[in-house]
Each structure stands twice: as structure tokens, then as C-alpha cells.
């Protein structure tokens, strides 16, 4: 009985913390329409800051709490809203999710920069582990009482806020109809700001409460994911109801502790299962949620993607393969392998182009599907032993098919629901794979050791005469596979099937009203997409040669998605950019900087800081995606398409690039120089084209706009216009030398008179 009560109390405490975390999430989601994936990272950052105040700088506990919860929390929430989230109105759900994912990654990188993970940090219980009372034979520690009391207080507080205060009622209204809210005299911006502040405070609070309960070790990734468990609780309330969220949190906390307390000793996998439990519960909740109403396009979103023709895609595919071959000539074998790794990530990113860019659905667990593909290929598709062992084509084929099948099964429960729920289902699957599958390392595991010894040796692929043991062959094979898959994806988008996907993305309601059943369409695209992810995953593993659980990180899926969206989720080139960055670019830059740090005594600090800054910067770029939701590829395509008529400039640029290449090939300049010059040339060419050949590049309207004459030269290089004369006279108070100034605005466009007036003001001043 005592044990039962003890576990009950522990469960209640865990549930209380989940409730605090989940209610913050529900709050921000409902008032700003942004599902904050960074909620866990905010909690993590709060816990680290609290540690810094109380342990690092030795401030009193009360002061540390005030600084963390009372200052850091609100400031972080306000900053997030004002700097980032406010700009997300009118963007697709995908963009909203990716921006919060970028914040998550940014916070994790930031914390690893400030608090290097090599050093262990422990956060103790409030009032220590000895301060406790005993009720009915159960020892309840002070920290646990604090958790329970705070959860109850927050529940009561939120209830009062929503039902008894004007601003609370406004908060409930802001998502339903911001315009209506404005009519009733509320400022939706202020209401949303307040909710982000409150959500952030709740996250930080949850962070400093849950860390000691979870063992006290401060580890950025683990802490971030710990609070993501609270997402499951929020699902109980369909992300709307705070009371139901609390019920869900308690159920979650209790079931986790009872499971650990009462599972038979022979279930050695129960620890892993317990870690996965919230995600499994999330999955079950998705199964029983009632179907959403079919929705139209709620807002006109700002994302725009142009799809190339298949013919053009084939040409670019060939160009890509040739370019990669040329680049490989500059590289040492080690770099070629890194490059190959980047291309395998590009294949995985391609799965996101199809799923997210074309069909508007989400997958937050690409790496988990990569792991599934790898495991299947490992178990069925390897022949030979030792150095002679090879991955076979049927191993790849089985892996790809199995991944697609698993993808279908994962998506199935969420297909009836909105895109966000599918994203959460994949997140849950990612947690499941990370905790259950990749830790299933020996016979006592639930799956009987599906991931033997926690380390799979995946040899290079060999098909007929093509042996990927040679790095250059591997690079070219993977590049060709990427190009073929990319052309395939574009051909798919150009087909009737692709038009149906685009229709579903733009307006589910209208698509259904044309007779399209949405569930089979979503299911099929998810299966195809996860198959591609599986292919990329198998190639990745075979490039690495040896993979462990760390090769398939949960956060890796998120950063791949983020970088692909930055590149342009609706473009195959966006996938190429995102994959190369995620798989090779970031690694290469960070490794180079760290090498420099190790190599140079005095500057080592600066270089290792630069490496951290670079990581945070990638996340910052992700956060900026709200500004340009269509991605870099969109801008680049638009810019280069415009200068296409300026042929001489393009030929000149190509010739210059060839010179750079030859210089690099004969080691006159280093590879970094080559990369730098290429980027510079790429950036400058459009400007040069505009400057040298304006008639070819600019439209008639742009040419018609007169070139601005510097103010001080007006009257010298160019005569004063009548308007300028009038404006000068007016400013100087001189009598008008010309009649009827009222005719001037009619004669000249308004903008130009305004401009002249400003110019004149300068002249006079």
C-alpha cells in the first residue's frame, strides 16, 4: 500500500510538471495560432539559467528563482513574439512549425555554446532531498509539494483569467477572429504578446521543476525532449482545453510511474518504454480524436513555388552530376566522403520537398525513417563478411519498401486530422524509434535486439560492376540517384497526381468537393516520401560505414527540415541546399573552425566561438524564414531568370568560374578560396548584368524610372524642374513666379512631388 501511495505521489508530481508545461503550450497556441515546438527548449534554457544563477554564481535560491521566472521568462516570451512570431501571420502552417523548430535548435546550440556539454552540471531539488514530510507513511519531499501546489495554483489562476477577466476572455477570442476582437476594442497583438509572455514563464517554471525530478543532470537535448513529452498532455485537450490538458498530464505522469513501479523485473526494456510512453500515448490520443471539419484555405498564404518542366529538370540533373564530378577532382578522398554524405542527406531532404513542398504535409522524423531503412537493409541485404562484405541492391530495395510501409502505418491515425497532428504523430514516432528501436541492442529487448550492440556496420553498396567502396564512385552514384529521384519527384508534381497534391495543399475542402478522397491521397504521398527518406538513410549509413543511435538524432530531423525550408521547400534545389548543409556543410565549417582552433594557440578561443556562432546563425536563418517563406531557391531562381537575356554577362561569368576552377585544380588557389570566389561571383553576376546590360535585363517600367541625380548636382548636371523650383520658392517663402500650384499635383505623379520636396529640403538645408 505504501509503495502504491508512493508511486501515486510521484506520478502526481510528474503530472503536475507536465501540466505546467503543457498549459503554457496550449496558451500560446490558442492566442497566436503558432504551435510552439520551442517550448521544451525554452524550459531547457530556463533550467540552465537557473543553474547559472544559483550554482554557477552562487546567488540565493529565491533570487535565482525571481531572476529566472520573473525576468528571463517574460523577456524571452516577449522577445520571441515581437521579433519572430508576430511576423508569421499569413504564412502556411509549415512555415510556422519550422520557425519554432529553428528557435528550438537555436536555443539548444546557444546553450551548448554557453555551457559546454563536456562539463557535468547537476540541479538539486528545492530545499534539498531531505526536506520532507510524511503523510500516511509516504515521504513527500518539499520540491514535490512545491510542484503540486504550483500546478493547482496555475490551474485556478488560468481558470480565473479566462473566465473572469476582460483580457482573458479576449485571449480566448483572438484566434477565433482577430478582426472581430479588434472591433470590440482589444488589440490582438497585445493579447498575443501577453500570452507568449505567460507561456514562456510557464515553460521556464516547468524547466526548473522537472530537471531535478528527472535526475538533475542538465543536458540540453534530453531536457528539450523531456518537455516535448508534455505535448501528449496538450493533445488530451485537443490543444484547446486547459482543464483537459491537466487531466491528460496527470494520466501521463501516473501511468509513467506505475509502469516503472509495477512492471515485472523480466521486462528489461521497460525503462526505454517508459521514456517513450508519452509519445505512445500521444499516438493513441491521435487515434481517438474526432475528425476535423474539412477546411478551406484559412488565409491566403505567402508561399509561392514555381515548378520546372521535366525536360528542364533533366538538363539540370545532368548539369548537377557533371558539376559534382568536376568538384570532386578538387577534393581529397576524405572530403569526397563528406560530400557524399551531404548528397545522401539531400536525398532525404527530397522526401520533404515532395511531402511538404508539394503536398503541404509534415514529417518531423526523417532520421527515424532513415534508421528504419538502415535496419531493414542491414538485416536482409548484406552479403560477405569482413572487408569483403557488401550491401546488395535488394537490401536497398527491401529497406526502401519497408520504410514506406512503416511510414504508411505511422501516418494512418493522423491522416483524418489536420497537418499539425500528422507532424506530431511523426514526432511521436521519432521518439519511439530513438528510445525503443535504437536502444533495442540485445536479446532482452522488446524486438529481440533489432539494433545489435547499438552499432550497425553497413558496408558499401555493390551493384554489378559498380562498387561504392571507391569514394568517387560512391559520390557519383549517390549524385545520380539524387538527380534521378529529383527528376522523378518533379515529374510526379507535373502529373495529374501532382496537381491533385497541390490542390489538396491549397484547399482541402475544394479538393474534396471535386470528388477526391483526401485520406488515400495523403497516405500515398506519405508512403512515397518516407520511401525516399529510407533510401537516403540507407545511403547515409553505408557512406558512414558504421552507425549508432547518435547517427539518427531526433534533432537531426528537425535541422534537416529547417535547412530545407530555408533553401526552399517547394524546390528540388532547396532540398539539395538543405541536405548538403545538414549533412556536409555545417559539419565541414564547424570541423574546419575547430581544427583551426586546435591548430592555433592564441586564437583557439575565437575559432571555437566562431564554430558555435555558425551553428546559432544557421538557426537564426531558420527563424527568419517567416520573412521569406518561399526560401532561398525561390529568390535565386527569380533573380537568375531575369538576367537570362544578358547572355554575354552569363558567358563571361561562366568563363571566369572556369578560370577559378582551373586555378583550384592546379593548386594555384586553395579550395576555400575557390569556394569563396565562386560564391562572390554568384552573388555579383546579377548586379553586373543589371549594370552592364540594363536594356536586356530590366523591364520597360524600370528603365523609365530616371536615374537619380545626386542632390548637390541638381542645377549643375541637370536643370531644376518646375516642381523643384516651386518647392524651393515655397520653402524660402518667395512669391510664386508661376501660377496655379494646385495644377502641379495633377500634372505630376504624387510620389515624385513628395520626393522633390524632400530633396529640396536637403538643398535648402
Amino acid at each position: 500500500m505504501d509503495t502504491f501511495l508512493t508511486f501515486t505521489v510521484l506520478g502526481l508530481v510528474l503530472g503536475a510538471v507536465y501540466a505546467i508545461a503543457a498549459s503554457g503550450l496550449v496558451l500560446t497556441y490558442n492566442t497566436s495560432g503558432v504551435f510552439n515546438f520551442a517550448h521544451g527548449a525554452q524550459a531547457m534554457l530556463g533550467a540552465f539559467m537557473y543553474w547559472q544563477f544559483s550554482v554557477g554564481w552562487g546567488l540565493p535560491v529565491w533570487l535565482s528563482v525571481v531572476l529566472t521566472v520573473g525576468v528571463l521568462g517574460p523577456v524571452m516570451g516577449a522577445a520571441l513574439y515581437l521579433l519572430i512570431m508576430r511576423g508569421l501571420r499569413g504564412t502556411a502552417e509549415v512555415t510556422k512549425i519550422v520557425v519554432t523548430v529553428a528557435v528550438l535548435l537555436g536555443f539548444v546550440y546557444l546553450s551548448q555554446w554557453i555551457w559546454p556539454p563536456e562539463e557535468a552540471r547537476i540541479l538539486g531539488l528545492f530545499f534539498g532531498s531531505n526536506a520532507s514530510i510524511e503523510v500516511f507513511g509516504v515521504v513527500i519531499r518539499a520540491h514535490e509539494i512545491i510542484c503540486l501546489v504550483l500546478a493547482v495554483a496555475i490551474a485556478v489562476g488560468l481558470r480565473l483569467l479566462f473566465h473572469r477577466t476582460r483580457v482573458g476572455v479576449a485571449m480566448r477570442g483572438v484566434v477565433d477572429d482577430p478582426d472581430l476582437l479588434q472591433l470590440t476594442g482589444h488589440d490582438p497583438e497585445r493579447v498575443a504578446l501577453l500570452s507568449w509572455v505567460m507561456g514562456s514563464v510557464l515553460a521556464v517554471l516547468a524547466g526548473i521543476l522537472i530537471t531535478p525530478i528527472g535526475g538533475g543532470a542538465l543536458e540540453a537535448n534530453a531536457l528539450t525532449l523531456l518537455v516535448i513529452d508534455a505535448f501528449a498532455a496538450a493533445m488530451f485537450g485537443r490543444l484547446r482545453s486547459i482543464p483537459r490538458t491537466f487531466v491528460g498530464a496527470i494520466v501521463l505522469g501516473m501511468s509513467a510511474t506505475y509502469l516503472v513501479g509495477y512492471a515485472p523485473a523480466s521486462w528489461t526494456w521497460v525503462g526505454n518504454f517508459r521514456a517513450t510512453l508519452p509519445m505512445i500515448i500521444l499516438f493513441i490520443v491521435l487515434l481517438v480524436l474526432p475528425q476535423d471539419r474539412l477546411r478551406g484555405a484559412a488565409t491566403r498564404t505567402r508561399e509561392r513555388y514555381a515548378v520546372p518542366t521535366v525536360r528542364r529538370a533533366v538538363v539540370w540533373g545532368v548539369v548537377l552530376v557533371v558539376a559534382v564530378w568536376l568538384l570532386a577532382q578538387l577534393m581529397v578522398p576524405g572530403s569526397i566522403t563528406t560530400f557524399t554524405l551531404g548528397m545522401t542527406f539531400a536525398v532525404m531532404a527530397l522526401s520533404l520537398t515532395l511531402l511538404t513542398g508539394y503536398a503541404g504535409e509534415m514529417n518531423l522524423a526523417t532520421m527515424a525513417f532513415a534508421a528504419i531503412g538502415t535496419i531493414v537493409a542491414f538485416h536482409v541485404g548484406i552479403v560477405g563478411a569482413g572487408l569483403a562484405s557488401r550491401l546488395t541492391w535488394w537490401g536497398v530495395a527491401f529497406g526502401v519498401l519497408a520504410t514506406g510501409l512503416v511510414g504508411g502505418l505511422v501516418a494512418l491515425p493522423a491522416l483524418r486530422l489536420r497537418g499539425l497532428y500528422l507532424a506530431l504523430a511523426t514526432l511521436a514516432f521519432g521518439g519511439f524509434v530513438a528510445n525503443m528501436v535504437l536502444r533495442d541492442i540485445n536479446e532482452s529487448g522488446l524486438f529481440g535486439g533489432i539494433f545489435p550492440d547499438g552499432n550497425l556496420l553497413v558496408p558499401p553498396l555493390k551493384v554489378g560492376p559498380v562498387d561504392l567502396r571507391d569514394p568517387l564512385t560512391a559520390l557519383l552514384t549517390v549524385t545520380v540517384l539524387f538527380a534521378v529521384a529529383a527528376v522523378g519527384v518533379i515529374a510526379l508534381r507535373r502529373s495529374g497526381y501532382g496537381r491533385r497534391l497541390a490542390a489538396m495543399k491549397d484547399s482541402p475542402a475544394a479538393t474534396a468537393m471535386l470528388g477526391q478522397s483526401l485520406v488515400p491521397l495523403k497516405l500515398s504521398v506519405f508512403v512515397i516520401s518516407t520511401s525516399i527518406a529510407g533510401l537516403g538513410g540507407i545511403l547515409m549509413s553505408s557512406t558512414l560505414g558504421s552507425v549508432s543511435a547518435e547517427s539518427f538524432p531526433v534533432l537531426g530531423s528537425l535541422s534537416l527540415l529547417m535547412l530545407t525550408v530555408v533553401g526552399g521547400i517547394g524546390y528540388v534545389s532547396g532540398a539539395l541546399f538543405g541536405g548538403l548543409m545538414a549533412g556536409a556543410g555545417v559539419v565541414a565549417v564547424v570541423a574546419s573552425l575547430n581544427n583551426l582552433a586546435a591548430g592555433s594557440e592564441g586564437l583557439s578561443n575565437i575559432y571555437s566561438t566562431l564554430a558555435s556562432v555558425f551553428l546559432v546563425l544557421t538557426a537564426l536563418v531558420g527563424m527568419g524564414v517567416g520573412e521569406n517563406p518561399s526560401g532561398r531557391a525561390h529568390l535565386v531562381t527569380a533573380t537568375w531568370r531575369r538576367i537570362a537575356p544578358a547572355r554575354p554577362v552569363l558567358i563571361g561569368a561562366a568563363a571566369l568560374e572556369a578560370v577559378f576552377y582551373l586555378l583550384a585544380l592546379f593548386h594555384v588557389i586553395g579550395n576555400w578560396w575557390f569556394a569563396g570566389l565562386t560564391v562572390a561571383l554568384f552573388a555579383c553576376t546579377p548586379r553586373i548584368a543589371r549594370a552592364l546590360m540594363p536594356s536586356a535585363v530590366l523591364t520597360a517600367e524600370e528603365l523609365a524610372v530616371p536615374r537619380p541625380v545626386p542632390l548637390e548636382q541638381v542645377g549643375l548636371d541637370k536643370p531644376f524642374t518646375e516642381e523643384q523650383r516651386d518647392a524651393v520658392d515655397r520653402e524660402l517663402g518667395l512669391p510664386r513666379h508661376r501660377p496655379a500650384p494646385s495644377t502641379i499635383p495633377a500634372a505630376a505623379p504624387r510620389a515624385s512631388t513628395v520626393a522633390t520636396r524632400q530633396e529640396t529640403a536637403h538643398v535648402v538645408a
Partner: protein
Amino acid sequence: MSLLEIRGVTVRFGGNTAVNDVSLEVEAGTITGLIGPNGAGKTTLFNTVTGLQRPSAGRVLLDGDDITRVPPAKRARRGMARTFQRLELFLSLSVRDNVRVAGDIARGGSRRRADLAAETDRVLELTGLTDVADRDVSDIPTGRARVVEVARALMTSPRLLLLDEPASGQTEHETDAFAQMLAGLAADGLGICLVEHDLPLVMRLCSTIHVLDYGALIASGTPAEVQQDPGVVAAYIGTETAA
């Protein structure tokens, strides 16, 4: 047996009754008008007929079969098509592809590509959209965008077409051509239900008009009868035309 029959449909949102015990019919080969002030429940009724909204009570029958619980996509495959008052165009697609995708869906993969392209061109021609066929659908004016919705619906070869304010945003000239097209379609046997604020257009085209006010039918009959109905004049025309 009527093409479409609505029997005693009621839709409640919370305590608010948006549609209250409405019964009406739409016959093949005719245009039936549905008018009423803003918020009268016209769009909600359309949503109920097309399956986007479950009614709290009442039934919807197509060809005499009860389809009240049939999902929207299946209703569409049985010959029902609609347009939306708040435009629901596919913004990633060109005008032509907006129309063609309806054919992609209706025929699955079975139809030859050339046939589909020809059919798309025919519908674009019929609706007078040929000149903007390759433009981005977000680039054309609202009045013509509404016609794209009509063209898309026609591409499914429907037997029943529900039009939700298709003429708003159209120029007078466009409306004339549009009216002629609708009359032609009805003459070919299509049953049309038209929600529209352009009363002269409704009076000109419809053989039967139903007037909805506060969710309830207050009058039904020929244009002449409805125009003279004192209740309608008081509740609808009196306020709407004055505004």
C-alpha cells in the same frame, strides 16, 4: 423524383440556429435561386448539401437517395459540384491546371492525357477563360476568379451545380455572358442552385426562387410571386435594396 431534395434541415452552432427547418428541391434542367440577406444561412445550407457541415436535423436526398451521412468526396462523385463564396482556388496552379485537376480527380489515372487536355480546353472556352488560361490564378481579378471556380466545377461533369455568389465582382458585361452560359447549361439538363445578391440576375435566370431569412424559408415561388410577397419585401428587399 427531384435531383436534389432538402427535407427539414436544421443546423445549430451552439445556441445559434443558422438554418431552421428548411425544405426545398432542385430539379434537373432548371435554375433555382436562393436569396436572402447576409447571414441568412445560405452558405451554411450549401455546406450541408455538400457534406462539409453535418445538419443537426433533417435529410439531404440526391436522386431520392439519402446522402446526409455521405462524405463530400462521394457526393461529388455522384454528380454534385459547387463554388465557394470565399474563393477556394488552388493558388499553386495556373488557371488551366485549376480546371484540369478536377478532370484528374474525376477520372483517376484512367483517362488519356490528350482527352483530358481537350476537355480542359473545351471548358475554358465555354467559360470564356481561354485568354487567361496560362496565368497564375492569383493574378486574375476576383470576378474572373469566380468563373474559374465555375469552370473547375463543370470539369467534373456534374448533374447538380451549387453556385455561391458567382457573379459578385464581375463587370456588367461579364455578368451578361455568365448568365447566358448558365441558361445554356440548364437547357442541357444541368440542375443549378444559385445563391446571388445580384437580384436582377436571379430574377432573370431562375424558374423558382426561395427566400431565406434568419435561417428560415420565408417565401418560395416564381420570380413574380416572390417579388410581390409582402413578407419578402419587408424582410429582404425592403432592407437590401435600400442599402
